[in-house]
């Protein structure tokens, strides 16, 4: 009767959180092109998030909305509904950056069109019989769970990145990344738990990550190159180089490769559960002081 899959990692970290979206807004009117001053590669590596997330998170929301009727666990349903609202606001907030760029003459449409195609067409719905339609939905939920582990990893990194403050990164952009990162950490188990509830086959889970992670890396590399080509202040003169990334990550301005690879492999361990990673308490504490989250209308 009282079976309850909770991790017993100690009473210190808050658990069983109610997930609620926050009605945040961000003002980009003073956003410099290189919002990490003199660090175009760092700036654009983070900027790829704005290219990927609006389309990606709307896709999550779409899939999750259609998964709701399959759920036979009221508590998980509450989590999924909270997740949907949070991801909706994430997509909207990153879209705000794209809209701002457009007013400054930076056109990201060609790249974004490809991402839209990937999520909406390649990974979209098919004319399928009902049973196979459901299988295709759940197979894609495995991909969402894999991506959610990556977003939680990045979110956790963003919450622990004092080097960006020291580099005088734009405070509004840092708040966007950390507010989003904090909500990713807080809801990190939802997609995993949903996949586990509806399917849970280890092979499908691991396969989703091993396919997704290299594609994400590829999209990131392409996105950085695209943004550096389009950057009006660089004028195509500066090319992204791997050694620039390694230099920046050594200075803690970007997440280190070993952490990203390590977390990818960690997800593929059979005993993995998102609640064993990262600190909900740290994320909750950030949300209680984030300028955008504390200003959100309630």
């Amino acid at each position: 009767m009282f079976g309850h899959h909770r991790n017993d990692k100690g009473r210190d970290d808050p658990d069983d959180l109610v997930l609620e979206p926050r009605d945040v807004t961000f003002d980009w009117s003073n956003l410099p092109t290189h919002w990490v001053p003199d660090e175009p590669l760092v700036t654009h590596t983070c900027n790829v998030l704005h290219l990927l997330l609006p389309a990606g998170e709307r896709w999550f929301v779409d899939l999750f909305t259609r998964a709701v009727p399959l759920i036979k666990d009221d508590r998980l349903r509450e989590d999924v509904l909270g997740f949907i609202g949070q991801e909706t606001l994430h997509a909207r907030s990153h879209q705000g950056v794209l809209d701002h760029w457009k007013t400054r003459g930076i056109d990201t449409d060609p790249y974004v069109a490809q991402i839209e195609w990937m999520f909406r067409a390649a990974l979209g719905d098919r004319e399928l019989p009902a049973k196979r339609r459901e299988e295709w939905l759940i197979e894609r939920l495995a991909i969402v769970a894999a991506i959610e582990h990556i977003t939680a990893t990045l979110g956790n990194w963003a919450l622990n990145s004092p080097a960006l403050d020291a580099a005088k990164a734009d405070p509004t952009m840092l708040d966007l990344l950390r507010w989003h990162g904090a909500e990713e950490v807080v809801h990190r188990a939802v997609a995993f738990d949903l996949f586990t509830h509806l399917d849970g086959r280890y092979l499908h889970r691991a396969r989703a990550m091993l396919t997704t992670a290299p594609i994400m890396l590829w999209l990131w590399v392409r996105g950085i190159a695209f943004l550096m080509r389009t950057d009006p202040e660089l004028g195509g003169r500066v090319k992204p180089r791997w050694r620039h990334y390694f230099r920046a990550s050594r200075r803690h301005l970007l997440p280190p490769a070993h952490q990203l690879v390590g977390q990818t492999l960690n997800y593929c361990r059979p005993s993995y559960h998102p609640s064993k990673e990262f600190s909900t308490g740290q994320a909750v504490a950030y949300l209680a002081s984030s300028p955008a989250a504390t200003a959100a209308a309630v």
Partner: protein
Amino acid sequence: MDDYQIPPPDLRGRAHADRMFRMLGALVTGYEWLANGAHSRRPSTQRVDRDLNLVVDEIRIEGQNVRSYRLVAAGGEKLPSWQPGCHLDVLLPTGRRRQYSLCGDPRDRGSYRIAVRRIDTGAGGSRELHDSVGTGCALTVRGPRNGFPYVRADRYLFIAGGIGITPILPMVKQAAADGAQWQLVYTGRSRASMPFLDELSALDPARVRLRPYDEFGFPASGSELLQYAPNQATVYCCGPAPIIANVRRDLPDSAAQALHFERFTTPPIVDGRPFEIALTRSNRVLTVPADRSALDVIRQQIPDIAYSCQRGFCGTCRSRVISGEVDHRDRVLTDGERTDTMTICVSRSRGDRIVLDL
């Protein structure tokens, strides 16, 4: 539906479709083929029962109109663990569902304690508990869930208003046990109406500040309460909506640096009029009373309906309107969208009836 056979245009504007994305499309096709392979069948989804069957073990008077209920498992089992800030969803015998903060000791795995103030003008949940739930009564609850997470910090200011002391009480005890630097400001109509003064008297009196309205007046500002904040304190605030609003507003001018708050009531429906909703797909007509939302009523009939914020900003619950004039109360839909959609969590009908494609 976009055609996934046709990859998107090339990134540099060349005439052919993007070659890499053509490969990505092929990869997805292969992935789908794998997914359809018959190597293992997807296990069927098991229904998960979240109900806890509890029994009222003891009822105590904690203040004017305030009673606490000690709940134990009907079979005497250990209860799920909880943390300060957690609440239970209590299903009352008449079917009402109410949330009450846990205010006992988290280390006690044998019982839960909730405290309830009887509100004569309320929707009836508290009256029902006070009047018809006695010792030995069975109660079904869900949870615990945490809507007000308590996070470790070195310095705290706790602000409680009236029955808002319930989630704060275990936090204060935890902070005291951890040796944190903390202050509690506790307001309420009068000392007699403020529950748990006896338990608070066991704590360091220099840290507990009682400010009943009949002695100090209703707090005129947030600053009046925030003045007790230790430097860089984390504030936990639970109480009447005006107190929370004032504390939120004045926080930037205080010594505190973070604010966690929990409201006990959902925002009231302003100028609500009852109306009917006809649902075409499920072929039903429902009546929305003045004090409930359309979502609330529809959800009882369609439990799988998607919604999220319940405050009209996320847009998850948008539904297609077939006919009827909508009183749009959301802050998300564009004028164009408002011509044929509404967010059912906050928006209502201007007329007597609205027809939805649900």
